[in-house]
């Protein structure tokens, strides 16, 4: 046990305690938390800084409005309803197409009636999915159509790309591929694949599913390792720009690639998980330390920060 402890330390693996005490506490001022924890505020902030994000189609803030959902949804064939303050992808309802009047196709071949949706929305409003159970807002967002080029490694659901930004500099990235086991969700806890991405090239390094190394997608048997992500430089550039919108020192940016709109910022996370280290077969510690050796990277422009990050990655983070 003690040997493993030392081994992990040597590899610079970041634990939850260290992440919270050494990076989140000193670098993430609490006043910015509402901006990332509330997806509506976050989206607004991103818009002001002209960072592309999925379109907000509507907002429901009271049970009264929930009763009038039918009017809001009348013209929509496809949409996503999610809690503004949800965590871990909980409480997301997806309608992928209209089945008949007031009935939509849901995920997993389910049919969604208007009553189902109203019930879900009132649950969101009552704070069922929010942190701490406070009253919440439900948001209607446009549905993301995942870029066909990603379909090769993610046949189902919405794969996303997570970039860890430390003091504005991208330090680590991975892509999360939904599987049938994760029921279409890009959540590693629920069985999605996490594949580490080389920062300099945008190529997947290795893939992990439920803490096990995998090469093939379990649903399609396609190789997910060594895959070149499309639009990689744009993705990184957008991620770096997020720091201007919300200057949190340590955060995770979740991006998706839409078929029509290109790379979009799905959400930002002030407490990004640590599984990304397993997917990259590398600890975050050394990379974060390398950034700390830079001279106040916060003052640089997003392009400069991106270049710094790539240069550090090229130099193997000064090791």
């Amino acid at each position: 046990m003690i040997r493993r402890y030392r081994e992990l330390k040597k590899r610079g693996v970041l634990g939850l305690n260290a992440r919270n005490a050494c990076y989140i506490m000193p670098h993430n001022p609490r006043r910015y938390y509402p901006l990332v924890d509330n997806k509506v505020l976050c989206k607004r902030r991103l818009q002001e800084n002209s960072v592309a994000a999925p379109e907000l189609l509507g907002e429901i803030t009271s049970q009264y409005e929930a009763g009038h959902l039918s009017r809001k949804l009348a013209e929509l064939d496809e949409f996503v309803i999610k809690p503004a303050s949800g965590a871990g992808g909980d409480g997301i309802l997806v309608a992928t197409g209209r089945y008949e009047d007031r009935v939509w196709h849901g995920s997993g071949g389910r049919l969604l009636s208007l009553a189902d949706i109203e019930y879900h929305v009132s649950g969101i409003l009552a704070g069922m999915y929010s942190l701490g159970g406070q009253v919440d807002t439900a948001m209607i967002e446009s549905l993301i159509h995942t870029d066909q080029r990603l379909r090769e490694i993610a046949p189902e659901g919405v794969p996303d790309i997570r970039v860890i930004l430390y003091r504005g500099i991208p330090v680590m990235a991975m892509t999360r591929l939904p599987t049938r086991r994760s029921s279409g969700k890009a959540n590693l806890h629920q069985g999605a694949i996490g594949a580490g991405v080389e920062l300099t090239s945008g190529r997947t390094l290795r893939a992990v599913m439920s803490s096990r190394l995998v090469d093939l997608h379990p649903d399609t048997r396609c190789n997910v390792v060594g895959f070149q992500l499309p639009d990689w430089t744009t993705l990184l550039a957008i991620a770096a720009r997020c720091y201007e919108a919300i200057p949190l020192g340590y955060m995770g940016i979740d991006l998706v690639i839409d078929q029509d709109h290109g790379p979009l910022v799905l959400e930002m996370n002030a407490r990004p998980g640590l599984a990304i280290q397993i997917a990259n077969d590398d600890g975050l510690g050394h990379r974060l330390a390398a950034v700390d050796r830079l001279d106040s990277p916060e003052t640089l422009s997003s392009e400069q920060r991106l270049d710094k990050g790539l240069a550090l990655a090229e130099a193997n983070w000064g090791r």
Partner: protein
Amino acid sequence: MTRLIHWLALALALITVGLGIAVYKHRVLGYPLHSENIESTWTVQARMQITPGSGPIKATLKLPTTTPGMGQLRENFISRGYGLTVQDAATTREAVWTVRRATQRQSLYYQGVFYRDAINQRFLPRPTFPEVPSLEEPFQTAMLATVEEVRRQSADIASFTTSLLGRINSSAPTEEMALFLNSPDYRGQRVRIARVILAGARIPSVQVNGFHLADASRTQPVRWLAVHNQREWLFFDPATGQMGMPENFLVWWVGEDPPIDVDGATLVDLIWSIRRNELAALDLAEQRSAIHAGWLAPFSLFRLPVQAQSVYAVLMLVPVGAFIMILMRNVVGLPSFGTFMPVLIALAFRETGLFAGLLMFTIVVAVGLSLRFYLAKLHLLLVPRLTAVLIIVVFLMVLLSLASHSLGWEVGLSVGLFPMVILAMIIERMSIVWEERGPSDALKESMGSALIAALAFLVMTLPLIQHLAFVFPELMLVVLGLTILMGRYSGYRLNELIRFRVLARSSP
């Protein structure tokens, strides 16, 4: 860096202060580490029987004041119809009973309760050198000769006294000593002989009168000899010449005068009796701290009314449970519902016992959860649904209590104090986790909660912990200090060693 120092200093200061006070209370004031500790106290009673004369009566009794190694718990005076005054002086204390006219034989009582108190070493102040007494011949010559002889054979005041007492007690006394021993003034008065000769050597000494504390219905004071060697008082047993005050010796008064003086009446009898009582060490410690550490007294939880005491006895355990919670979550990495829910469950276990508590927790949560899934199908709003779950929980608990009662299993009855709101919240939270992340996460979190609660319960019900938390509330500062220390623990959690095992193995 300054923040780091600040943090460390604060935590260490809290721990040191807390531990310091606790150690002081234990070592010096005698607060016991176990609740069962018992110490002895002694009730010494002086009973005076007097037959009144024709005029007013005044009876004076010397009371203990300077009692090295002993403390006084309380005292009582019983004297019907007499006026009582207690005269306090620096080294003497007297009770004076007075009455203008008394007609029949009467008893006056004094009772003092004494306990061992090692801190109290107060005795008489430093005396002056006595003058060499002038006695009539042949005593004067005998005294000077004895002084001369003993001085030759001794090194210091202690050995002088021992040697002198040896001569007095010798079966074949010297000629000079025999003179003293056979004279009517000194016969049987070893202490007086010793004091005269000590004065001849200009060594200050006093006669000490007191009791060996042991059960006795009728006893007499014992005379001891105290000699001052210019640094401290030394005590000698005049019968053996041994130095040192024995344990459980209570000094009552000092000097050669009798302890009682009666004016205007005849003292028929003076009876001393001693009775040993047992008292919880805790009560005695409280007494000692009231005398020696008055600043501590306001912080004692024993000052609260008994009802409040029992509340605080539980409340003081919450920090302990919460600290275990910290260890389980930040060092081991067990998942749990909410931050303090396991501690609250552990408190609830106190009412039911661990096994019954866990069983009820499981039954109530399992049944409540399945009913909640049924309710979910009805599409109820959140708050009414939560309330429905709560009502179901109450029903379940009533049913459990009734069932266990009819089975003659009385534990079930105390379930009523189980915090049902917490149970209802757990059921609701669990059902959401169940729906959103699947049963494995929900079971993991609830097992984690139950495990932490069980652990916290086991620690919180240790008699030692309960006793320490209540008697030494300052230990809470230690828990706070440790908590602050844990607040910056940035090492791995135990479960992370497993989670990141892939990274440890594939080390380059």
